[in-house]
């Protein structure tokens, strides 16, 4: 029994290297340098802010190549949080163009002078200059200034007022009961009689003003849906304006409709009394105020509509389209309102008419549950698959959806959609959503954001990407990778991710391979030494196998291998799907490599053994066969085979690859030659003394060196030939075309065409299923045409907007600050 115990221990020690300890170091080193490649990439350098990409960890490079879900913040990540007034429509005439950076339309000014609609234009401009809650900062305190700074709680209003300023209609002073504007050189003071606040229920805001000509007017701006239904019956521009709205919406602009009405004194006085009562009521004040406001906001005359661009970060929609093409599902998690979120969805092409757009906005758990269940059933077989569908969900509903009874349905539904937009979610919810998907779906998740409110989700996701933004560095500090711009994400994933993944797979497989190949040899030798545990190789040569002789090839595979160049991978996101679906590393492939290693070791050992069978491989007739002679001979062949195998697995041989492979082989020869002369000068390796001389002087050794490695690798070579000829992967086809400098588009197209008609059929099918029994509105499908209303305004603040503007008097000079 003692004997068995010792034998077991002996073999335990003998084979401990089958699980290579060196693997950890190799992999870490490779990942570390891969991370540097990310930092070094000049394509991911943002010259505006002087920030290169920065890998803050080196552990996740390969996960970048397998991302299936991206959770993105909106503001600061997808958008710049900069609103710009782009287009407007006044009395059925469209001004401005979507292509220009700013609205500066001379036609509008010309029409203001002499066109038949000049009165409407004037009203329109006055409305924009007066109906808002912006506070001006007239620093110069001059009369009729043209340069004024604005403070606005709503970026939309800021954009509108700024645009008016550029047109020469400068709003420059606000007192508790009036606003003053410089209307192209004329000072006009408007008394503010009432402000009817914006809220997301009302979707509109109105002011009642007394003009310099002593008329009372109600100016109203808001969503097309609410303005259009409050128009006087015979309004003539509704149709054109509607078309224009659709036009604006399709180009991704945020739209507002503007209307006004003139009030008589009596009308106003009656209403005013009611309003005062309502606003001093003790119970249900808000409802009463809204009710009264509603009474006056009617019989409006339509002035037109505005289109404001919520500026996207550079190339966001292109990047998102590419990510979609790569089979990545995109979730936008934003604190914004539904309208804003949907608007952004359209402008960056996450939402489109080519998909089934679902919305979920339920006020309680039961409804949420019922609706989710219904949607899931309607998806039927396509549930949990890739569908041309999108889902927009409200923060409130999300709260219910994340609760236990709904969670599974919500998840099923959400992962059936290409795009999911969650609006009005808190930072905590963002993290919860990411957590849910990460836990329930076997896929890599990535969260990207720029602000402190994204820290939670960045930490929750497998991979967190921070955008070095203007919103501070919390997100960047919590992230694994930081980039300067959203658009760099594509290169990070498609190039660095895929490369790192493929390379790391090769390094892992290869590291196992090379160790198994060497150490299994000890097993074959055990059959020949009575299982005594004698090792075939000299112990120091084994010791530095992973340190010197085969250290460089995995590095070459891990750092220099590339199957096709970066530009191609950027152009054809379909390539990404290969690494995403983990086709390069799975149990089957792992065992194939292990068997491959065993096969090589069998060839190497038994051929060498047969070659030395009679121990006489030298013309001097002396006997050379000692176990170390056999060992060194085999070891040389192993180094050859293992290094060349790395070459065989390399898709590209750079100069450094050559150095790694041939240098490793050379290093063994040099080491071997020197090591054979160490004893007895140094008290190591007496058995090695004279080895190199006798190994190198044996013709059999050299003939074996030509024959045995080639024999071992022949099967691999033939396998590669067959695979490459008859079972090419997409990657390999792309690579071939690239090498031949052929056009790749038809190749990639040929891969996509069969899928495309299916997608539209599927869409039609889905739509019909969803609307068979109920109206789109009931189902929660966004009804078309989509008019793109969105408006940001702080709501339910401590100080209502009405009071807020009445506390300012910008004519009073500010006390100097200390």
């Amino acid at each position: 029994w003692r004997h068995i115990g010792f034998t077991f221990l002996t073999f335990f020690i003998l084979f401990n290297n089958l699980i290579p300890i060196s693997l950890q170091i190799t992999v870490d080193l490779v990942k570390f340098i891969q991370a540097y490649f990310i930092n070094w990439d000049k394509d991911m350098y943002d010259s505006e802010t002087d920030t290169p990409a920065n890998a803050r960890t080196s552990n996740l490079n390969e996960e970048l190549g397998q991302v299936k879900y991206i959770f993105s913040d909106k503001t600061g990540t997808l958008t710049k949080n900069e609103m710009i007034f782009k287009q407007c429509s006044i009395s059925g005439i469209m001004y401005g163009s979507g292509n220009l950076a700013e609205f500066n339309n001379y036609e509008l000014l010309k029409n203001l002078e002499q066109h038949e609609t000049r009165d409407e234009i004037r009203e329109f401009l006055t409305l924009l200059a007066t109906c808002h809650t912006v506070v001006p900062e007239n620093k110069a305190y001059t009369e009729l200034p043209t340069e004024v700074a604005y403070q606005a709680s709503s970026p939309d209003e800021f954009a509108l007022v700024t645009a008016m300023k550029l047109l020469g209609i400068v709003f420059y002073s606000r007192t508790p009961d009036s606003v003053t504007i410089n209307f192209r050189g004329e000072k006009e003071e408007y008394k503010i009689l009432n402000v009817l606040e914006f809220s997301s229920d009302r979707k509109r805001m109105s002011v009642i003003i007394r003009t310099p000509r002593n008329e009372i007017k109600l100016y109203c701006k808001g969503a097309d849906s609410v303005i259009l239904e409050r128009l006087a019956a015979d309004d003539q521009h509704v149709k054109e304006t509607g078309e224009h709205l659709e036009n604006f919406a399709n180009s991704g602009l945020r739209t507002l409709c503007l209307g006004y009405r003139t009030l008589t004194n009596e009308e106003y006085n009656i209403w005013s009394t009611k309003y005062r009562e309502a606003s001093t009521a003790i119970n249900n004040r808000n409802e009463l105020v809204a009710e009264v406001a509603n009474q006056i906001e009617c019989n409006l005359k339509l002035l037109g509509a505005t289109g404001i661009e919520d500026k996207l970060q550079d190339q966001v929609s292109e990047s998102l389209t590419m990510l979609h093409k790569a089979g990545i599902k995109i979730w936008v998690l934003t604190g914004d309102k539904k309208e804003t979120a949907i608007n952004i969805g359209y402008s960056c092409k996450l939402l489109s008419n080519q998909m089934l757009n679902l919305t979920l906005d339920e006020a309680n758990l039961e409804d949420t549950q019922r609706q989710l269940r219904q949607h899931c059933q309607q998806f039927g077989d396509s549930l949990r698959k890739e569908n041309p569908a999108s889902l927009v969900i409200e923060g409130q509903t999300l709260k219910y959806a994340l609760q236990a009874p709904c969670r599974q349905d919500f998840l099923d539904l959400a992962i059936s959609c290409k795009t999911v937009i969650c609006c009005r979610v808190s930072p905590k919810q963002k993290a919860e959503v990411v957590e849910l998907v990460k836990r329930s779906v076997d896929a890599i998740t990535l969260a990207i954001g720029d602000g402190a409110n994204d820290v939670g989700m960045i930490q929750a996701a497998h991979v967190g990407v921070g955008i070095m933004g203007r919103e501070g560095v919390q997100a960047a500090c919590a992230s694994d990778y930081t980039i300067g711009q959203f658009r760099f994400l594509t290169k990070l994933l498609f190039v660095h991710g895929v490369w790192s993944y493929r390379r790391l797979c090769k390094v892992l497989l290869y590291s196992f391979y090379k160790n198994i190949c060497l150490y299994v040899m000890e097993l074959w030798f055990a059959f020949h030494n009575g299982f005594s545990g004698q090792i075939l190789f000299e112990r120091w040569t084994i010791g530095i196998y992973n340190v010197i002789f085969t250290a460089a090839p995995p590095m070459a595979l891990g750092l220099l291998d590339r199957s096709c160049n970066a530009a191609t991978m950027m152009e054809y996101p379909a390539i990404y799907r290969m690494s995403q679906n983990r086709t390069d590393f799975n149990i089957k492939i792992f065992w194939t490599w292990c068997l491959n290693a065993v096969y090589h070791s069998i060839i190497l050992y038994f051929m060498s053994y047969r070659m030395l069978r009679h121990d006489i491989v030298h013309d001097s007739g002396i006997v050379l066969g000692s176990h170390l002679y056999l060992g060194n001979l085999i070891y040389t062949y192993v180094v050859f085979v293992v290094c060349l195998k790395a070459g065989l697995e390399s898709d590209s041989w750079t100069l450094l690859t050559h150095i790694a492979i041939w240098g490793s082989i050379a290093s063994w020869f040099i080491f071997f030659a020197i090591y054979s002369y160490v004893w007895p000068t140094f008290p190591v390796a007496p058995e090695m003394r004279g080895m190199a001389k006798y190994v190198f002087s044996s013709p059999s050794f050299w003939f074996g060196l030509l024959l045995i490695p080639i024999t071992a690798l022949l099967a691999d070579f033939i396998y590669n030939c067959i695979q490459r000829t008859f079972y090419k992967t997409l990657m390999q086809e792309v690579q071939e075309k690239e090498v031949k400098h052929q056009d790749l588009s038809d190749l990639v197209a040929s891969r996509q065409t069969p899928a495309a008609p299916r997608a539209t059929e599927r869409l039609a099918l889905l739509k019909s299923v969803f609307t068979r029994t109920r109206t789109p509105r009931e189902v929660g499908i966004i009804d078309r045409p989509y008019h793109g209303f969105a408006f940001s305004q702080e709501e339910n603040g401590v100080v209502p907007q009405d009071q807020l503007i009445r506390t300012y008097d910008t004519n009073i000079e500010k006390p100097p600050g200390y």
Partner: protein
Amino acid sequence: MSTPAENEADNEHQKSKKPADTAFKQQRLPAWQPIITANTALPVFLAIGLIFIPIGIVLVVTSERVLEFDLDYTDTNCMSLNVSNTTCADVLAQANYTGASCTCQKSFTLDKDFEGDVYFYYGLVNYYQNHRRYVRSRDDNQLLGKKDAVSSDCQPFQKSVNGTDITPCGAIANSKFNDSLVLSMNGNISVPLLRTGIAWSTDKAVKFKNPDNPQNWFATNPRPPNWQQDAWHLDTNLTDDNNGYQNEDFIVWMRTAAMPTFRKLYRKLSLTESTTFQNGLPKGTYVLTITYNYPVTSFSGRKQFIISTTSWMGGKNPFLGWAYITVGIICMITFVVFLVLHKTWKTDDPLAYQMRSMQMNQRTAAGYN
């Protein structure tokens, strides 16, 4: 002249974090991308086939030219001269392996002239000279002629009963092959044999050194228990050069064999001592006189006496040649198969291409489900 401020601005400019645009950092190193398909690999297979088959033929022919004569004298080929009808193996067994010796003679005929250098080997079968504990049981410092206390690796042959170090110590030395094999032609002309030049020159020159005053040293220190005389009497000619640790039979034995079936060089034919043997070993009848000291039957071992010439490749071993031929043929077959495939299934054939991409689509589609 630049002001400090300007310098600072300049430095600032240089300190831009923009990554350097080098081929290595941007991963644009020029690379050779081998695309190995059945077509492009055709010349490789052809070349390997065309090179390997001729090499194989040369090696086989070379091996065939080597002459070799084997004689297994473990049991019935070695009948004791003193005890009738008993093999020497049995004689040793009956004496309980207590150092009994036995002599036998075996005659044999060589059909061909063994021309040139002729080598005499003894071969052992089922003898695990590569056993871990056996391999370890030696002290290379002692063999360098150092008189220090020997390593405990030599256990159980480290010290004699009275506590002094055994010279040479260890299991390998103790088990040294000690049969003596003497060859005579036609029963009377003894074949002149060389006892030196049979070990690795490096071993003889570097690894094995006698201690100072060797004769006295070996005489006063205990010898390994299985040895009949001390190390200084291994070669009866008592030349300084071939006795003690530097005895070549001993050196040969100390380089442990890789496999349980092995040969060791015993003697070389001396071409200069006699005109009869100046061209090698002529064909004829020979008698081998064996002093049978080395028991192997107890562990089912075998002993052989081998006479061999060598080629430039060494002894007779056709394996390498046949392996070359086999691999060459495999490559040629692969070449032909791929050529046929290439002719019948052109990779640019649109139909084949379409089929492939359809398969691919199905596969990719399956991947999503």
